[in-house]
Structure formats: structure tokens, C-alpha cells
């Protein structure tokens, strides 16, 4: 187990090193002089100011050294300063992080809370009209653009019915963004739960349990649900990263003050240090999350760590 964890941490470290390298090199995609682009606040930056900024960012170093300069700064906790307002990038990002997490987990809760029962039900009633309807809903859910769904929900629940606020700070204003975010992943989870359950229903031990004459509810909840859980839970690991991605878009539909909204603002202002910080933070979250999930999974199912 310890060996597995160490190995997993090692691969995560490699992943982070490569991601930080890519993030560092992104700056060279900018057409033109990145430093001149960054000095936007000054209508006419002096050559000295340009040189100072270039030096601070390490862009006056040879390409291969730039990365070490960048990582060196990262290791001291310095993600640079934003161009606009010249505030520490780390601080700006951390301020928004709780909001994004809140939205992502609320979305995940909705996706799982509704997706799993629906998938379970569809598998149980396999072939019925309800199954078909649920699967049609699943295809629709995967196909609907979440930003449009968000607008439609606003139109219905805020504008027409007046039930929920459009934007705001309290928990009620989180309902619509969370539902918007959740629906897509609800569809995916429902589809996967269904496949997994169909699989489980055909397993020997279920047939045995049924043959023994156990009540159907016990067969379902004691025997079928648990093995299915583990398979479906693996899916959550996959979905999580994409859910965080979806949150970026949804935040911008609902003026939800998280990382995604910050990122779009940073892009609009061409605030490159902030964009770099955002990408790196997102990458780190996803990597850390996958390590945690892997370790937890290995702990639940010891066969994994032997592989």
C-alpha cells in the first residue's frame, strides 16, 4: 500500500512538472512581445520598465532556464503578480477557489443524487418506455449546451416564475448554476449507472439471491446496489475534472464569482500571469483529486495496488 501511494505520488509529481512546464511555455504563443502586451496600464512604458518586467518574469533568460526560473518562483509560493491591480496571483485565485468548489460540489451532488437513481431505475425497468425516455433524456442532457440551458432556466425560474434570484451571494442563487452544471453530468452518470446495473443484474449472485426467494427490495438494495456503487464511483473521478471545466462556463452565465469568471476576465484583459496561475491551479486540483481518488480506491479494493 505504501509503495503504491509513493508510486502514485511520484507520477503525480511528474504530471505537475510537465504541466508547469507547458504553462510556463504558453507565454511564447503570444503573437508579438508578451511584455509589451502586459504593460497595458502604462500608455507608454519606458524601455527600462519593459526590461524590468522582462527580468522579473525571467523572459530575458535562455528558454531552458526560463522554466527553472518559473519553478523557482513557484516553489517560494510566488505565482507572480496580476497585470491589472498588480496583486499577487495566488491571493486572487485563492479568494475565488471556495466559490468554484462550492458550485462544483453542488453540481456533483445534483448529478449523482439524480443521475444514479435514474440510471438504477432505467436498468431495473430495462426495455420499458420509462427506460427509453430516461435514455433519451440522457442523450439530450449530454447534448444541451450548458450555457444555453442556464439562460433557459433563468428565463423560466427567475424571469417568468420569479422563484429564484438571477445572481447574488446566498445559497438560493446557487441553485440555478448548480442545476445547470449538474444536468449534463447527471445524464452521463445515469447512462453509466444503467450499464453498470444491467451488468450487475445479470451476475450470478443476484440470480441466486432471487432464486432463494429473497424479497426484491433486499435483492436490489443489499446485493445489487453495492457492487454497482464502486463502478459508478470510479466514474465520478473521471467526471470531476470535466465538471470543473463546465463550472468555468456556468460561472460566466450566472455571474458566479469563482475562478472561471476570473479566468475569462483575465483573458479579456490579457492578464497573462493570472491566466497562467489559473491553469496551473486547475491542473493541480485535478491531479491532487485524482491521487486522492486513486488512494481511496486502492484502500477500498486492495487488488488495485498490486497492479
Amino acid at each position, binding site marked *: 500500500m505504501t509503495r503504491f501511494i509513493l508510486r502514485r505520488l511520484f507520477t503525480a509529481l511528474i504530471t505537475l512538472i510537465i504541466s508547469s512546464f507547458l504553462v510556463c511555455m504558453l507565454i511564447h504563443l*503570444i503573437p508579438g512581445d508578451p511584455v509589451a502586451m502586459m504593460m497595458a496600464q502604462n500608455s507608454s512604458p519606458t524601455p527600462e520598465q519593459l526590461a524590468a518586467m522582462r527580468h522579473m518574469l525571467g523572459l530575458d533568460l535562455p528558454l531552458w532556464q526560463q522554466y527553472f526560473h518559473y519553478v523557482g518562483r513557484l516553489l517560494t509560493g510566488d505565482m507572480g503578480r496580476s497585470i491589472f491591480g498588480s496583486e499577487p496571483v495566488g491571493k486572487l485565485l485563492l479568494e475565488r477557489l471556495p466559490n468554484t468548489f462550492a458550485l462544483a460540489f453542488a453540481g456533483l451532488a445534483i448529478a449523482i443524487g439524480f443521475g444514479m437513481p435514474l440510471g438504477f431505475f432505467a436498468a431495473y425497468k430495462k426495455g420499458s418506455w420509462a427506460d427509453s425516455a430516461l435514455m433519451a433524456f440522457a442523450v*439530450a442532457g449530454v*447534448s444541451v*449546451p450548458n450555457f444555453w440551458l442556464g439562460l433557459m432556466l433563468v428565463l423560466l425560474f427567475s424571469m417568468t416564475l420569479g422563484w429564484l434570484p438571477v445572481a447574488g451571494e446566498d445559497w438560493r442563487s446557487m441553485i440555478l448554476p448548480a442545476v445547470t452544471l449538474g444536468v*449534463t453530468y447527471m445524464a452521463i452518470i445515469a447512462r453509466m449507472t444503467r450499464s453498470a446495473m444491467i451488468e450487475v443484474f*445479470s451476475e450470478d449472485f443476484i440470480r441466486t439471491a432471487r432464486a432463494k426467494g429473497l424479497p426484491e427490495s433486499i435483492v436490489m438494495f443489499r446485493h445489487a446496489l453495492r457492487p454497482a456503487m464502486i463502478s459508478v464511483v470510479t*466514474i465520478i473521478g473521471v467526471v470531476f475534472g470535466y465538471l470543473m471545466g463546465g463550472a468555468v462556463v456556468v460561472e460566466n452565465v450566472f455571474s458566479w464569482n469563482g475562478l472561471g469568471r476570473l479566468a475569462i476576465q483575465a483573458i479579456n484583459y490579457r492578464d497573462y500571469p493570472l491566466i497562467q496561475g489559473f491553469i496551473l491551479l486547475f491542473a493541480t486540483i485535478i491531479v491532487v483529486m485524482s491521487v486522492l481518488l486513486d488512494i481511496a480506491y486502492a484502500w477500498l479494493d486492495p487488488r488495485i495496488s498490486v497492479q
Partner: protein
Amino acid sequence: MSVVVPAAQSLPAPLTRMASPRRLLLRRMLRSRSFLIGGGIVVFVALVAIFAPGLAPFDPDRIGAGKRLAAPGAKFLLGTDEFGRDILSRVIFGARYTLYIGLVAVGIGLLCGVVIGATAAYAGGWFGGLLMRTIDLLYTFPDVLIALGLVAFLGPNLTNAMIAVGISAIPYYARVTYGVVLSERQKPYVDAAQVVGAGHLRVVVRHLMPNVLPPMIVVASLGFSAAVLSAAALSFLGLGAQPPTPEWGLMLSTGRNYITRDPWLVIGPGVAIFITVMAFNLFGDGVRDLLDPRQRQRTQ
């Protein structure tokens, strides 16, 4: 960007092992229904795009074709926008952009992905291993992050958005290709061809590719829907198509400012994206099952 076909497809393989032949047949019929509906809509959207100039009642960019913000009616079936432009005409011309964006993005992703995946599978060894490790690594990250990062630094416009969306899907195509080629490679006919003295390139092009193609059609179709969604999302965020392009995502982005009073500005383009994406998803699902139900495992 929002919905992620790659994730949807990355179901653990054993989960889809099917049960009885009767159910299987049933499933296939059900699936062929999705093939028909999906394919039908895809063809319809393509025809609309091709014949847009003939179909659209107005020039999509014509300001003042009608009163500003006119509600849907006989003359303007979907109403007019803030410039008095006919929304229906803009939605019709938008089909062109959507298909174009999808083709370019899938083209970039598929081309690079197939080359990388096939190289890794065919070469094998430490080189192939390293290549796939890198691809796996990139696959960990949501495509939104990759596309967003690229557009942020390349600069926001439609061309860059298409490139970014294409690149962000490379890991997906590479992984699928790798899996498919690897399993084909182990089949006797590849060895046979090599024994006969066929060169590597010849083996790949003449023997491997024809077998690899069918699953790639499925992958491309599903990838197409993901690309359309991603590009529309980028445009919605102001990072893709720029005004006055009648691109659906952009139309939603400007239309949202009028949602309180003139909601039709966001209904037409939204429905158009939704239907198109769903059509490609259905079509991809349908093709997969028609080709061979067992292909399911490989394209996942």
C-alpha cells in the same frame, strides 16, 4: 467544452459486456433508430448550410431588415435582433459556421491524434510508451482547460478557437487510435503482410487503416458534437467568433442582454446548437452499433 464525450465514452470496458443475443438485437434496433434520426438531422443541417443563401429570407447581416427586436411573426419567423436583423436567416447561416468549425476542429484533432496514436501503437517499445504516457497525462485535463489556455495566449478569434478546440481533443483521438491499432496489430494478417515483405508504411496504409477506419467514424462523429459544443462555448464567452458573424454561440452571448424583454434572441440559436449536437451524438451511437456491437468496447 461543456459536455464531454470523451468522458462519456470512457466507461470501464467490462461494464458493457452484453447479455443475451435477443437483448442485443433489440438494442441494435433501438440504436439504428438513433442512427436514422441522428443521420437524418445531420444531413438536414448540412443541406441547410449548403443552400443557406437560397433558404434564408434575408441577408443575415442586413441591419434594419425589420424593426429592431421585433417579436416572432409571419415576416420574421424567429423575430429580429437588436439591429433589426432577421434571426432565422442568421440561424440558417450559422449552420455553415458550425459545420465548418466542427470539420476543421475534428480534422486537426483526428489527424494529429491518429498519427500519434498509430505511431505509438505501431512503434511500441519505450518510444510508444512515452508517447502514450504523455497523451494520458493530457487526457487527465478537461478539454475546456486546454482550449481556454490556448485561446488565451493565441488571442481570441474564430480561427484560434477552432485550432484550440482541435488540439484539445488530440488526446482523445490518440487514445482511441492507439487501442484500435494495437489490437489490429496483434492479428495474424499484419504479420502475414510483413512476412510477404510489405514495408511498414504499406502495412499501415493498406492493411491496418481499412480495419481501423470504421471505429474512427464513430469517434469522429462523437468528437464532432463535442467540438461544436466547445467552440460555441468559446464564442459564448467572447473568445471565439467575433461580431457580426452569425455564429450560434456568439448570438447567444449578445442575445442574453435582451433575455428579460426579448427572449427569442436566445431561443433560436440555442435550439439550433442543441439539435445539431444531439444529432451527431445519436448518429455516432447509431453507427457504432450498426458496425458491430463489439466495436463498442474499442471506441470507449
